[in-house]
């Protein structure tokens, strides 16, 4: 099944990443298995070919950072900044994610089977994120575009200073951040949810979610809105 197995107890992250970076873009049948990650940082970051990498254990900061085209599957938890600035591809975490999951990412799909901590989707720029558990405070802070789907609850200040990103939460929202409001759920949003939930392997039903987005009051500095800043 796997074309390569790399044991990080014997091989450095540097050597692993170098080998992954040197992969031929045409060989998309590559399927790598990583053993003993032991929380190491920057595992499988900067990939740019459609390889599949499965990590057997917990990964540290910036796992699959800046991913392009690759599929990275983590059978464990991940630390800060999983899939940060991802451009395309899929990152699937079968565990919990620490803060800033999917931060600033421009594209691709990030799925977290359990909870994600604070600032999930911060400054997101086009990524689709599906969190099957809950997210922490300040999630989707300054989120620009893309979709954040939370099947559980959201912490304080959800969507603070949000631009055009769409937020969907099935559970409770502790509080909304500045300029973030609840919005009407229209048919196109239900369709979008159905598609993304299906891609993420979730059996949640779209009609159980509520939608949040920008009130667009902060788009231009106005003295009358000074109390919001």
């Amino acid at each position, binding site marked *: 099944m796997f074309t390569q197995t790399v044991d990080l107890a014997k091989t450095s992250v540097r050597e692993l990443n170098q080998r992954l970076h040197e992969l031929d873009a045409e060989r998309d049948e590559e399927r790598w298995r990583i053993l003993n990650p032991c929380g190491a940082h920057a595992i499988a970051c900067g990939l740019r070919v459609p390889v599949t990498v499965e990590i057997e254990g917990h990964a540290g900061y910036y796992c699959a950072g800046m991913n392009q085209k690759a599929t990275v599957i983590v059978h464990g938890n991940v630390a800060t900044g999983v899939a940060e600035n991802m451009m395309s591809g899929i990152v699937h975490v079968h565990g919990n994610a620490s803060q800033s999951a999917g931060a*600033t990412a421009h594209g691709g799909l990030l799925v977290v089977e359990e909870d994600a901590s604070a600032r999930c989707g*911060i400054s997101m720029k086009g990524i689709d994120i599906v969190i099957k558990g809950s997210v922490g405070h300040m999630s989707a802070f300054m989120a620009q575009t893309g979709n954040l789907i939370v099947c559980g609850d959201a912490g304080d200040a959800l969507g603070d200073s949000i631009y055009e990103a769409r937020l969907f939460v099935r559970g409770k929202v502790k509080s909304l951040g500045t300029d973030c409001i609840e919005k009407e759920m229209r048919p196109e949003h239900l369709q979008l949810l159905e598609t993304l939930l299906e891609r993420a392997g979730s059996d949640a039903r779209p009609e159980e979610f509520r939608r949040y987005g920008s009130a667009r009051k902060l788009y231009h500095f106005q003295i009358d809105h000074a109390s919001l800043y």
Partner: protein
Amino acid sequence: MGIEMLPGVRESATFDRHVICEIQRAADTGLYDIRGWGSKRRLPHFDDLVFLGASMSRYPLEGYRERCGTDIVLGTLHAKKPIRLQIPITIAGMSFGALSAEAKESLGRGASEMSTSTTTGDGGMTAEERRSSKILVYQYLPSRYGMNPDDLRSADAIEIVLGQGAKPGGGGMLLGRKLSDRVAEMRTLPGGIDQRSACRHPDWTGPDDLAIKIEELREITDWEKPIYVKVAASRTYFDVQLAVKAGADVIVLDGMQGGTGATQEVFIEHVGIPTLPALRQAVEALVEMGMHRKVQLIISGGIRSGADVAKALAMGADAVSIGTAALIALGCNSPKYENDYRKLGTAAGFYDDYQDGNDPAGISTQDPELAKRLDPVIGGRRLANYLRVLTMEAQTIARACGKSHVLNLEPEDLVALTVEAAAMAKVPLAGTDWIPGASRKADSH
């Protein structure tokens, strides 16, 4: 007759004309003043230092005959591919958005002609900028606007920006009225809205995290690129040491005279410390760690002449970076556009409304008609000329101090003209052996 000549008229030193005007403006609008440029008030600076040219105790090198090197290498500590520059003067990061595409191309052309580097800014890298810049440093900013791993890999170095001398801790704002569709698209935001540039990074906090972030950037680029860390001058000693500990190859230090595209006046004039003391603190921090010259130091904030370059190097910097001066070289505040400046309520030599996008010189604008006024070929040539002059001036001074390379200049070549500058630069007050605050007297013999 000027108002100053009227008998009995006395201007308040506390409430001078500028202060009165600002209070009245604030009362009229309810808004604080936002402008470009950098600090405009008098600050202790390189002007307050002079060189001790060679005479009996030191011998000088022959001008125009004996070689005085200016080449430098940056990023020697960890990067597989350090940057080699022919002159110790680089172009500071300025965004496409704050500046026109023509201005960015001009900067690239001028820097490339002199075999030095230019730097991207908030909003990412444009294809024109990459093409026109032989050596391009890619800024990695909190907003991550336009951040793209392909651009990261195509850059020659990466500069992680923590702050800017004009606004330490402040982030930034590109006002909607200055926004073109192209700039908005690069930033993945709707056109015409104010675009906030965040003041802190979204996925790391503090020096321990920064070390891991640097590791990630090195991994993504296969350890080829030098990693710069840019800090604003404030708690400089600690910031420099923490940045070095986090793994920086190069420290970029921006003093409070450093320029900005748009910042609150109160921020520009009242937050951060001047370039002079910040530079000395940074060098002390590096020396104490045994990393001086191993981690290179680039200083910016008010560099205008070859004398400033030479003084910065003598104090221990490896290179300087210029922003405002480079824009002036391109034509910013040129008397050629005096009538246009007057229409904007200002004059050549005073224009600082970079935030409005109405720059008559076509530099800090996205208006295509104004931008056309700047020919990148001519702009590039003007910048190269200016860089050439700065370099020759620095060499002239270095030779006069007996140095065969500008990096051989040293603090012992300098004295201060004011007590403040002596204390801040930790060089003796001219004609004395006194360094205010130093534990022992300088050896002036």
